[in-house]
């Protein structure tokens, strides 16, 4: 049967099913809706099909296809959830696409809606496009490819093709620039996401240099594809050739320009590796600091350890393992290379033989493994990045915030211990910890939280996390049933003895309620807030348990972050700065609580919130039990009330509250 006939036939069928649906009473409506949806599902894997359904969307909405579903009120939809729903398959993906078509129709003024106006609808669609770039450009992530059938991929792709032809992409360009800024400002260790976006923009969107909103996107592109004027349009081989002809002075300028470019977004181009290796091969050691964009501390460290470092760099850096150059620069600036233990650790690591299973994981975590780069090179490169950017550690798509938090803490405060752990794990694919006088061996424990590791992680994390996760889980099992939050014992055992002994939890296991929240808030302020803790700063990161809430403030679950510091932001507001290992720059926890990742005095990788908002989501933290009691009563009651109200009106609704006083 020819295409036209099929289409005609399909249209006839969907109209018939639609009539049956609209004529049905409430009793058989779900059944008819099911059949109608099945037909829509079959039709919308082409643009023509989408278009036909788009023309019907007003009727479908009026007949109540969305009624009594999570999609019924378009003002309550969350753009960031769309991706997950599209991946979950029919019927969810089908109704999700219908829902987007309805919003598109609202944006285009085709239909009116009481709760959403045209601008809001257009804005929503743009957000959906930005958070679904993999579909917009039809380059699904590996995991997407695995979970979605060809038909589902066609559906979703046809939909985005249809939508992007009808929505101004200029607005999307600005959102893409914003998205890239949000990601890059955090300086994540894993840079695949921003690279992918930049790559896709390069391939699929025409940038107009005359337009100011395009200029920003150009800058991002340059940082990867042509970081210097001289590298423009040259392949890495051509660039290598070109470097041979440069005078010392010209080479110095090239190095400076390269270093500056890298520091702008924390992204490293392949040309950078070529330049650095060229400089070292020709013994121009004095050009390394400008090439790495080093500050004076970094420069001093390089000068001190240049000979041992240069051999590690030569062994590790490669145009296809280039991002580690940024980590290396930041590692030098942090000065940890001065520690003998760190240097020994790095030296040892350069000689190990990696366990085949670990090697598999490392290669799997590399987007495009290169034949000339070994798993060990990737591992040491990732280590540079972890050591240079402790706050850039992420958990990927894994429920392993605890492990990510640990890696970040060790990187900052016990780098040699971390290196040693990596070495053990990489060689043996196993790890051992002490817990309350007993040993825990990862290979002898049961399952961890993660059943199927998402390999969208750095090589250090894929080496360690599967074991850390199991050990953490085993510790939690051993410490459970004690009538208190097991983290009280697990945190110090897992992270190290610098974790304070006192442990405050808002939740009381025995009464299954939130008990003495006022006291809890007072302890928190006396621990963290410089105006009430004697003007002190936090010394070590404090592992804090927080409630994750939806953008409506509803309780979603628990999450682990580290409180790093509490200080006044440039605008004078006291803020809590913390590490959130989920690397999400766009969060909305409801009640106007939106953690920011830059612009409020954050260092790269930090998230921050006004202190009372952070306190209002905290349910557990550690403190020095010898110190806080004298300070607790000094906290103004108004401040405590403010925190308590935020808590009670959000996650607090999921719990009973008792005002009984508690001994903290």
């Amino acid at each position, binding site marked *: 049967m020819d295409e036209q006939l*099929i289409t005609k036939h*399909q249209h006839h069928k969907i109209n018939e099913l639609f009539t049956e649906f609209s004529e049905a009473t409430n009793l058989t409506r779900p*059944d008819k809706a*099911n*059949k109608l949806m*099945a037909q829509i599902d079959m039709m919308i894997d082409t643009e023509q099909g989408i278009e036909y359904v788009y023309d019907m969307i007003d009727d479908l909405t009026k007949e109540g296809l969305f009624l009594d579903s999570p999609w019924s009120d378009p003002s309550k939809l969350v753009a960031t959830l769309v991706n997950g729903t599209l991946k979950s*398959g029919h019927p969810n993906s089908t109704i999700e696409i219908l829902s987007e078509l309805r919003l598109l129709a609202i944006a285009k003024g085709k239909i009116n809606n009481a709760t959403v106006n045209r601008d809001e609808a257009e804005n929503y669609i743009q957000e959906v496009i930005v958070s679904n770039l993999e579909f917009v450009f039809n380059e699904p992530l590996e995991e997407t490819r695995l979970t979605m*059938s060809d*038909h589902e991929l066609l559906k979703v792709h046809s939909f985005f093709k249809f939508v992007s032809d009808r929505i101004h992409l200029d607005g999307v360009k600005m959102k893409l620039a914003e998205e890239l800024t949000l990601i890059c400002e955090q300086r994540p260790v894993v840079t695949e996401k921003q690279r992918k976006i930049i790559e896709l923009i390069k391939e699929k969107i025409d940038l107009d240099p005359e337009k100011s909103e395009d200029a920003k996107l150009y800058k991002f592109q340059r940082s990867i594809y042509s970081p210097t004027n001289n590298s423009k349009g040259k392949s890495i081989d051509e660039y290598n050739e070109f470097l041979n002809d440069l005078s010392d002075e010209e080479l110095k300028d090239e190095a400076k320009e390269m270093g500056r470019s890298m520091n702008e977004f924390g992204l490293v181009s392949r040309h950078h590796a070529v330049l650095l290796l060229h400089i070292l091969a020709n013994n121009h050691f004095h050009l390394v600091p400008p090439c790495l964009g080093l500050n004076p501390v970094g420069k001093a460290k390089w000068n001190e350890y240049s000979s041992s470092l240069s051999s590690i760099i030569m062994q590790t850096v490669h145009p296809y393992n280039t991002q580690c150059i940024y980590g290396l620069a930041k590692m030098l600036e942090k000065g940890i290379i001065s520690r003998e233990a760190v240097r020994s650790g790095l030296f040892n690591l350069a000689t190990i033989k990696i366990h085949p299973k670990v090697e598999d994981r490392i290669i799997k975590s590399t987007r495009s493994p290169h034949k000339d780069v070994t798993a060990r090179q990737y591992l040491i490169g990732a280590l540079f990045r972890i050591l240079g950017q402790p706050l850039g550690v992420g958990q990927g798509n894994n429920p392993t915030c605890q492990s990510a938090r640990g890696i970040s803490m060790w990187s900052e405060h016990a780098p040699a211990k971390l290196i040693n752990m990596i070495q053990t794990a990489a060689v043996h694919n196993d790890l051992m910890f002490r817990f309350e006088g007993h040993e825990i061996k990862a290979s002898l424990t049961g399952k961890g939280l993660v059943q199927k590791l998402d390999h969208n992680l750095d090589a250090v994390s894929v080496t360690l996390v599967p074991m850390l996760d199991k050990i953490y889980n085993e510790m939690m099992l051993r410490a459970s049933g004690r009538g208190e939050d097991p983290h009280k014992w697990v945190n110090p055992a897992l992270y190290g003895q610098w974790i304070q002994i006192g442990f405050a939890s808002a939740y009381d296991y025995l009464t299954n309620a939130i008990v003495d929240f006022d006291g809890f808030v007072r302890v928190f302020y006396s621990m963290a807030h410089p105006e009430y803790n004697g003007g002190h700063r936090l010394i070590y990161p404090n592992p804090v348990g927080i409630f994750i809430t939806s953008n409506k403030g509803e309780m979603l679950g628990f999450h682990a972050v580290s409180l790093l510091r509490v200080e006044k932001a440039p605008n004078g507001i006291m803020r809590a700065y913390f590490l959130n290992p989920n690397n999400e720059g766009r969060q909305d926890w409801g009640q106007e609580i939106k953690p920011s990742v830059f612009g409020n005095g954050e260092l790269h990788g930090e998230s921050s919130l006004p202190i009372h908002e952070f306190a209002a989501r905290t349910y557990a933290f550690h403190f020095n039990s010898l110190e806080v009691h004298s300070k607790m009563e000094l906290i103004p009651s108004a401040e405590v009330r403010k925190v308590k109200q935020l808590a009670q009106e959000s996650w607090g609704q999921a719990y009973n509250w008792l005002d009984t006083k508690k001994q903290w």
Partner: protein
Amino acid sequence: MAKCFALLGWSLPVIESMQKLNKPYVVVSFPDFEPYAKENDIPFVPYQLNEWSDSSNSLDLLEKLNQHNVDVAVPLFEETVEWAGALNSIYRGDPRVLNRAFLFRNKAMMKRKALIGGLRVGLFEEVYNKEGVKAFMKRLNEANLQVEGEEDSWVHIKPFASAGTVGHRLLRTMNDVDEKCEDEDFPCLAESHLPGREFSCEAFVHGGKIRFLNITEYVKLGYSNFIPEGNYLHSKRDMIMKEMQKMVDLFGIEYGMVHPEWFLTENDEMSFGEVACRIPGGHILELCGKAYDFDALGAFVLCHDPDLSEEELKEILPPIDARPKNFYGNVMIYPHKNQISKLEIPEELKEEPYFLDHNLVPPMTTQKISDRDGFGNHFGTVNFKGEDPDRMTELLLHYENVDFYH
């Protein structure tokens, strides 16, 4: 005209038909359905239909239904046939209506009745254990003059009172008896395998006369069927009609709809399989309604009303000699694997001009398929519509073997 119909069981499409026809009704079903009924303004009497005791019996139910002025009871489920029989025997003042209901609920009794009345049936017997089945198979083998080395005669066993294919087992050898039969199967009916093509009839009966006869062509039992009957069966329609009326007379059926299964051999011999008087499975009435363009479910209910006028009958039923242009068929889809994680509609189906619609549901993340009872639970139905019954047969046979679930 009935004052009020009591619908025994639960079927939303039937309730919808009653609402659309604007006929008085009350639904009698398990208390679990009460909240839904209330929410949707469905007149409802909660009743423990699976319990028979001092506080749960037909006289008690009768009293409850009197408040609704019920004068006709309609069974929707196999399990409510006796309840409807008991109530209708009171409404019609005829105790035999109840006995007839028992007839429908006991496959051995039903066959005996058929045999007495001169319908052709297979050899059958009530069996109480595996030995009984083996002895039956042995006698069957003897009767079929089995020579050493020849295959055993096929035997079917069926529970006395289950709907459709539930608990139905086909035993091809003595070994099968040991392997396939469970102790819980007994007592049950054992019968010889009937040769011929299988089909069912849906006869809408009023005043003891067949007012409309639908013939459903079974393409594969438990998987697929279509309506109206194909050209070959259609050429036998007069004979089928005669046999059907004979059965209706013999069973003394006056009002309602009967759904017997028949086997037709090449020599034009019709054997009676079994008969039910509730809504048939396999979405038969849905297909029938579409093919003949009438409210088959509404007609099913109304035919139970002795006071229905000739005009009303004419209005609700298609003409007795109607022959629709389009054939409507469906195939029930079962997963072919033990573990499935996704639903994939094949491209060829989308391009198939006969394809009408489907209601297949995707599986839960990764779903294990439990062992089959009868033919197991199907995951949904694919419907077809077209003008050529042979093409329809071909399609139904084809899609029965297509994997929709992976």
